[in-house]
């Protein structure tokens, strides 16, 4: 009966080899786990030492239990006839000991997992199952096991006899024993997030398995993380958007931020490029600050995470965009937000993330004080769960391609446009024979005009490979749980050349509690490594603009084709700009990042807990830009100065300590939660870089020492500190009246003495009106209804460092690209003043108001949340214009300008079909944002006099006003004050319509049919953006292809057209009009789109197969990202702009399973 192991081994000959592999894996896993965790095997030992004489059987059981952790299940009746036991064993196997004990007892025993069930020997009918309810008993003992739908044992499930206080929780292995009054007692099984089950005792067969079903869509039971405290969604007075591990996991992305696109109302993310590692532009509820940072505050497992790119501020980040603005914060980036350099979040492994919470309103963010104005994004990593040690493996492989190419002119169309352009301007058509100086190789006869190449296919038509491997080991007991995970991701690009992004990461989490549950420890850590190589420029632009008759990229012998031809001046290259030339250049960034956090807490008295968090973060980016001479055509590549190796190192490290005291108590119908805490936070940011030039050979270029000249590119060192005291009082009355008060007083070194401290706070209130009897009676179909409101202030400290002190610095540093200017005189290195300083500036203050309505209909099958918010950001820190007579032209000052963001956010979850085999649910989110500059006293005297207009959106820009094409001349015309059709700045500038989102949202549908699950997510954005013309010169420009849209250009007098006439290059009159056009509202296009952002289909292997293979949760899946975009936009993609590499269409397939 106890032959658990032997049984298992007996089955093995069936399919020996596979099973052996699994067994080896399992053993390896356990060994690995033991090695890593250094966990003593003592607690799991099955060795028993007992010395007893005539002892009661149940006392023996107790001793064994305390030594081995094995539980014993029996009824009092069972032991009635038991004999006293005499035994003396030392370090014997449990099995042997039990055999000895039961040797002459009228009893039998079975062992399953860690459960010893004791029964009366029934030799007569060995085949019949045990009747657990002995007749005449007043107490019925129930034993059994609880698992989830996938068969995983569930610990800590509440098992309770209804109407009594008899209750227990399941063990680590999901087992329980419960004594109930009689066989008609109702037993309730409950666990947060799972459907509660009620069963009659007599219906529970002995040792039967209760399967708990996850509660679908029961969002209100979800406990949400509000940073310093957790709250049930139902009782929350704030506005927090949550993205779950499931939603993240089904998207084949390597940057977790990309997994949030479209998923949360009010969170606006623009993925500006499809290059691996590219940064996104992110804001929550619009732009609050006119000239300072609008980045949300990011926290990973309690440790602040910098939203600044780790790319060097001193050297170029190539195709990822130069990270010039980030050195002293995002000051110079203004409200365009981030979006350049390598994404700082790319170092995080999406598979390590359990959930991402987006804190939006005052109630949720005020506790973050001066860091909370732009919202807070909390990233929580996965934690171990109690249960058997389990190995999870997830492998996937896929491809990425550009999903949408532009319609560009082919060679015949191109030549036709060029001919027309020269004819329009009355210029002779270029001809190399008549003019040997002519540089128009595309049309003068040097290039073969019978060639027609689709450069998009040649340059960005490749297939990016996407590989992902994830493994984790987790498990633990009720008191200690652990998780160790590792991941590897590799992505290549669609470009020619050897570029890509490779990531490796380790993640661990350890939770432990004392047996009385008073002391808790949680240690989490993740380490990430990333190796990112991108070209120095995005080939997508070349692909769109290279003339279609350009020569082949390669010579027949495989070398780069420079199209050398003999001009009267000797040998010249007619294809200097061969795009392949730059494939020898690269920007390589190697990033290392460590994030670690330790939480310790102790419950001093019931409800009173003291706690402290200790966090540490260290990130490092080593960047090397290589420019060898082989990128240049042979006639031009003789100068060793052309070879360049730019080298930079950026490091950031910091720590945070947050001691806290919390108190929780129920007083009558009231439920009080009080929290008091403090924060000390420090961040060091160091950057340095140098440029080496003058290499004698490309072969030596990786060693900067081989360069003749090494010049510093910059050096900076920043110390930033923050401290705060924070408090929260949450009070719930009768589960229906909710009140939440939060406050924060903090200080930051980014402000001068006397201006460092700021006070922030918020009040949130809620009323669950469906808990009022009258409402519940009148509206039975309304299963849930809550009204909530919050009001409070937060601050924005994203202003850069050390701005309040007047400083001098050595001249020559901090210059991006090229050698520093002269910086010494008479041998003395000079010191240059940086600023006139205003020691008195302070926070920008953001006042947030929100009202929300949360409704559940038809037993919560339909859940609707609607929020209206109004954020007013005042005390704007702007760069106030000074007259140059002060020596400088600006000083940082607070200004009573007021920026308002209002909006409506709607979130809808519905369970459309809920049947035995088929489920269909839908989630929709919708955001309608509005931005307005309410007031700006003194605007005229500020540096924003010509860029902002009171009453308009910050997204409006002063632009010329386009008035159509003159049907006689075919040229663009503009509204002008002096009617000569040539607009001039500033008098002819008018505020444009806002260039931003009108509304945006997303819709996700989840279908499950038996073992199949399908998720489809659609992103919808209605917006305006820059049109394609800004990225293209006017049609007719030499060696510059155009979208086919230019074929609609004006051709003859009297014709109405949408594109002005062609012109032969910059000397043509069309050029000036073109320049005015792209500075007018004429090139603001509708860039709205509907995108099938994600689709994920997975198949859970049938339970029988899984059991056979000793797997759980095994599934195979196929996932797709950016599958199709519906848009009228002419460029590649509305998000990445007209000629930027669009986010790739990625399709991956994979398997995942746990053992």
């Amino acid at each position, binding site marked *: 009966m106890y032959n658990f192991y032997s049984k298992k081994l007996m089955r093995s000959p069936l399919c020996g080899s596979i099973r052996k592999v699994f067994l080896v894996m399992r053993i390896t896993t356990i060994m690995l786990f033991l090695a890593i965790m250094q966990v003593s095997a003592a607690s799991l030992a099955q060795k028993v030492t007992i010395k007893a004489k005539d002892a009661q059987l149940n006392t023996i059981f107790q001793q064994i239990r305390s030594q081995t952790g094995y539980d014993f299940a029996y009824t009092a009746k069972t032991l009635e006839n038991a004999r006293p036991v005499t035994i003396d064993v030392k370090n014997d196997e449990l099995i042997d000991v039990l055999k000895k004990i039961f040797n002459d007892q009228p009893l039998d025993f079975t062992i399953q997992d860690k459960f010893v069930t004791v029964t009366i020997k029934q030799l007569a009918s060995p085949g019949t199952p045990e009747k657990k309810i002995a007749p005449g008993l007043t107490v019925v003992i129930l034993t059994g096991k609880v698992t989830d739908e996938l068969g995983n044992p569930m610990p800590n499930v509440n098992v309770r006899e209804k109407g009594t206080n008899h209750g227990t929780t399941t063990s680590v292995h999901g087992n329980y024993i419960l004594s109930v009054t009689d066989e008609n007692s109702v037993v309730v099984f409950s666990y947060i997030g799972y459907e509660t089950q009620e069963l009659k005792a007599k219906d529970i067969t002995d040792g039967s398995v209760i399967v708990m079903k996850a509660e679908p869509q029961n969002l209100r039971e979800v406990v949400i993380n509000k940073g310093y405290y957790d709250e049930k969604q139902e009782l929350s007075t704030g506005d927090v958007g949550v993205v779950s591990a499931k939603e993240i996991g089904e998207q084949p992305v390597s940057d977790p931020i990309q997994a949030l696109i479209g998923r949360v109302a009010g969170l606006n993310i623009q993925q500006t490029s499809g290059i691996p590692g590219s940064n996104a532009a992110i804001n929550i509820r619009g732009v609050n600050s006119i000239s300072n940072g609008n980045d949300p505050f990011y926290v990973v497992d309690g440790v602040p995470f910098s939203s600044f790119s780790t790319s060097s501020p001193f050297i170029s980040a190539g195709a990822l965009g130069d990270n010039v603005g980030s050195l002293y914060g995002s000051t110079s980036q203004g409200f365009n937000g981030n979006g350049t350099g390598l994404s700082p979040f790319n170092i995080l492994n999406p598979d390590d993330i359990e959930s991402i919470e987006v804190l939006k309103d005052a109630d949720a963010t005020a506790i973050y004080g001066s860091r909370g104005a732009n919202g807070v994004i909390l990233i929580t990593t996965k934690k171990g769960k109690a249960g058997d040690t389990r190995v999870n493996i997830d492998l996937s492989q896929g491809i990425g391609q550009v999903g949408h190419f532009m319609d560009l002119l082919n060679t015949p169309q191109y030549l036709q446009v060029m001919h027309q352009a020269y004819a329009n301007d009355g210029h002779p058509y270029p001809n190399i024979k008549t003019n040997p100086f002519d540089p128009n190789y595309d049309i003068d006869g040097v290039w073969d005009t019978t060639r027609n190449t689709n450069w998009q296919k040649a340059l960005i038509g490749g297939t990016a490979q996407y590989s992902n491997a994830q493994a984790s080991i987790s498990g633990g007991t009720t008191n200690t749980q652990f998780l160790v995970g590792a991941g590897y991701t590799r992505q290549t690009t669609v470009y020619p050349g050897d570029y890509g992004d490779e990531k490796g990461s380790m993640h661990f989490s350890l939770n432990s509690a004392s047996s009385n549950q008073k002391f808790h420890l949680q240690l989490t850590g993740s380490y990430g490594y990333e190796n990112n190589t991108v070209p120095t420029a995005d080939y997508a632009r070349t692909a769109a603009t290279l003339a279609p008759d350009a020569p082949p990229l390669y010579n027949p012998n495989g070398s780069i084709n420079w199209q050398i031809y003999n001009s009267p001046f000797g040998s010249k290259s007619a294809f200097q700009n061969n795009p392949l030339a730059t494939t020898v250049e690269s920007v390589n960034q190697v990033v290392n990042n460590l994030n670690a956090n330790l939480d310790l807490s102790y419950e001093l*008295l019931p409800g009173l807990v003291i706690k402290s968090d200790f966090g540490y973060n260290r990130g490092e980016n080593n960047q090397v830009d290589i420019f060898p001479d082989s990128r240049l055509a042979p006639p031009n590549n003789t100068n060793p100065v052309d070879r360049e190796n730019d080298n930079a190192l950026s490091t950031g490290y910091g720590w945070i300590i947050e001691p806290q005291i919390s108190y929780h108590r129920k007083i009558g119908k009231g439920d009080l939660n009080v929290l008091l805490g403090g924060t000390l936070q420090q961040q060091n940011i160091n950057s340095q870089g140098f440029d080496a030039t003058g290499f004698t050979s490309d072969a030596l270029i990786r060693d900067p020492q081989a360069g003749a000249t090494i010049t510093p590119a910059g050096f900076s060192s920043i110390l930033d500190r923050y401290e705060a005291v924070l408090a929260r009082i949450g009070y719930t009355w009768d589960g229906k009246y909710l009140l939440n008060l939060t406050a924060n007083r903090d200080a930051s070194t980014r402000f001068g003495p006397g201006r460092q401290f700021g006070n922030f706070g918020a009040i949130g209130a809620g009323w669950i009106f469906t808990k009022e009897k009258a409402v519940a009676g009148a509206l039975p179909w309304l299963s849930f209804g809550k009204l909530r409101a919050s009001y409070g202030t937060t601050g924005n400290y994203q202003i850069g460092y050390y701005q309040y002190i007047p400083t001098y610095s050595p001249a020559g540093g901090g210059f991006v690209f090229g050698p520093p200017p002269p910086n010494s*005189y008479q041998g003395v290195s*000079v010191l240059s003043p940086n600023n006139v300083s205003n020691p008195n500036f302070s926070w920008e203050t953001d006042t947030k108001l929100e009202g929300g309505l949360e409704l559940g209909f038809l037993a919560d099958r339909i859940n609707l949340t609607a929020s209206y918010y109004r954020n007013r950001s005042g005390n704007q820190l702007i760069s106030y214009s000074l007259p*140059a007579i002060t020596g400088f032209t600006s000083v940082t000052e607070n200004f009573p300008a007021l920026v308002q963001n209002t909006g409506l956010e709607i979130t809808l979850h519905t369970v459309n079909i809920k049947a035995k085999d088929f489920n269909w649910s839908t989630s929709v989110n919708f955001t309608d944002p509005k931005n307005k500059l309410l007031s700006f006293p003194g605007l005229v005297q500020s540096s924003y006099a010509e860029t902002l207009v009171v009453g308009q959106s910050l997204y409006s820009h002063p632009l010329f006003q386009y008035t159509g094409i003159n049907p006689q001349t075919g040229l663009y015309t503009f509204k002008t004050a002096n009617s000569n059709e040539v607009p001039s700045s500033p008098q002819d500038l008018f505020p444009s319509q806002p260039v931003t989102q009108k509304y945006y949202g997303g819709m996700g549908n989840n279908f499950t049919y038996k073992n199949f699950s399908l998720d489809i997510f659609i992103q919808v954005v209605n917006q305006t953006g820059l049109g394609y013309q800004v990225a293209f010169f006017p049609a007719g420009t030499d060696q510059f292809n155009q979208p086919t849209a230019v074929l609609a250009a004006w051709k003859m007098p009297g014709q109405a057209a949408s594109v002005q006439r062609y012109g032969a290059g910059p000397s043509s009159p069309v050029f000036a009009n073109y320049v005015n056009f792209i500075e007018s509202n004429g090139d603001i296009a509708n860039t709205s789109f509907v995108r099938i952002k994600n689709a994920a289909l997975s198949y859970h292997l049938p339970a029988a197969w899984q059991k056979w293979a000793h797997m759980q949760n095994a599934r195979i899946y196929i996932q797709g990202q950016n599958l199709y975009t519906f848009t009228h936009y002419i460029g590649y993609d509305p998000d990445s702009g007209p000629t930027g590499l669009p986010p790739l269409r990625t399709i991956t397939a994979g398997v995942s399973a746990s053992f």
Partner: protein
Amino acid sequence: MKTYYSHKTNRYRGLLPFAFCLPAAIGILFTFFAGCKKFVEIPPPTTQLVNTTVFNNDGTATAAMMNIYVGMSSVQGISSESYNMAESMGTYADELTLYDNSTDVYNQLYINALQATSAPGPWVNAYNYIYQANAIISGLQTVGGTSPAIRQQLTGESYFIRAFWHFYLANIYGDVPLVLTPNYTTNATLPRTARVTVLQQVAADLQTANRMLNSNYVDGSDTTATTERVRPNKAAALALLARTYLYLGDYSKNAAYYTRADSAATAVISNSNYSLSALNGVFLENSTEAIWQLQTPQPNAPADTYDGLYFILLGAASAGGSGQNQTTISPQLMAAFEPNDQRNTTWISSFSDGINIYYFPFKYQQNTNAGLEYTMVLRLGEQYLVRAEARAHEGNITGAQQDLNVIRSRAGLAGTTAAAQSALLTAILHERQVELFTEWGARWFDLCRTGNANAVMGAPGNVCKFKGGVWSGTGYQLLFPIPRTDIQADPNLKQNPGY
């Protein structure tokens, strides 16, 4: 009653820990916080120095002073104040012909059609130098720690720099704000000060500088004498003072200033450290004629001087070419040279593309980093002409003729024939044209202060018309417009009429 009490006690027993712990916790937290007030008092960044640190140390204070000279000799590594002034004033007046009309600002200067939006002239840079000088004066005064000799030297140099740039501002823009402190809150609302008052302050600052400065030239230590004439000394202060008095005489119509100009120039001319060089040796490093030069920018200078780099034509003058090949000497200036004037051959060179001959200034003869020339700021030759003009005003005709002839004879010309005061003044004006061309805009200032600008630029000279512009009779073009951004930012600052 018993029940009541016990009930109550029970309730409070639960609250007890809270009642005790909450105030305790608040107390602890706030003590912790107050104790940590120091936590947010951080030192300045290691890559930057706070003002007070800069001025309590000889080395760093000197480094702050040197920044002004580096700035003047190399404006952000692309030009120099000397070249900027020579080029913009030269094209604005009648010295240079502009070929590069691709940039609005250059073209506006050339055709005398300036716009306040383009902020022409040295306004922004000049006030930045003045700020730096004021910051040094005030910093050295308020922060102790520097040695007295060095403090005196640096303060003297700062007064000199403040005077130097106010001098140019007053000549280019007329009435200008007089900035005497580094305090931006005071300076941001300054009104304009009358030109004569500004020049009087310039003279006062130069007298202060003259008192404080060393008579030797000093090296990077601020105290040790050197042969490098690259920092202002007493003679430099006197030379600029002489020029300032001469200009003051013209603008204030107060003849007493000519006497002072005479004596200040005499103090320089009689100083045995200075003597006229041969024409081809004037602009060499530390020439005997040099009173103050600016060192070649270090490191990475593209040439000895930016004047040499940009004025010397290596091809036909044309549009574009990153500052090079964009100007030639104007026909008016070419015509001003008397026959056999050696300056015409030594200080002017030409480039021929086979079709046209392009003449260009060749005072600076190096267009590479040859280590031979420094940028000249003040030189003895000018002092003779200053004294000649002052003497002519004073009625000392013979003295004036003598000084004028010193300059003429070096150029290989016979003595002047002008004998009457007005004829002599005309002769001196002419001599200045051919002696001081393309040096810091001297020609334009001469035309303005002597009242000859309208006649040269407008009828009958018609230089403006020749350049393609329109010369207004109102004379508004005699002053540059104040940059519009400053008019917007300073409510008390009024624009020059006509702009």
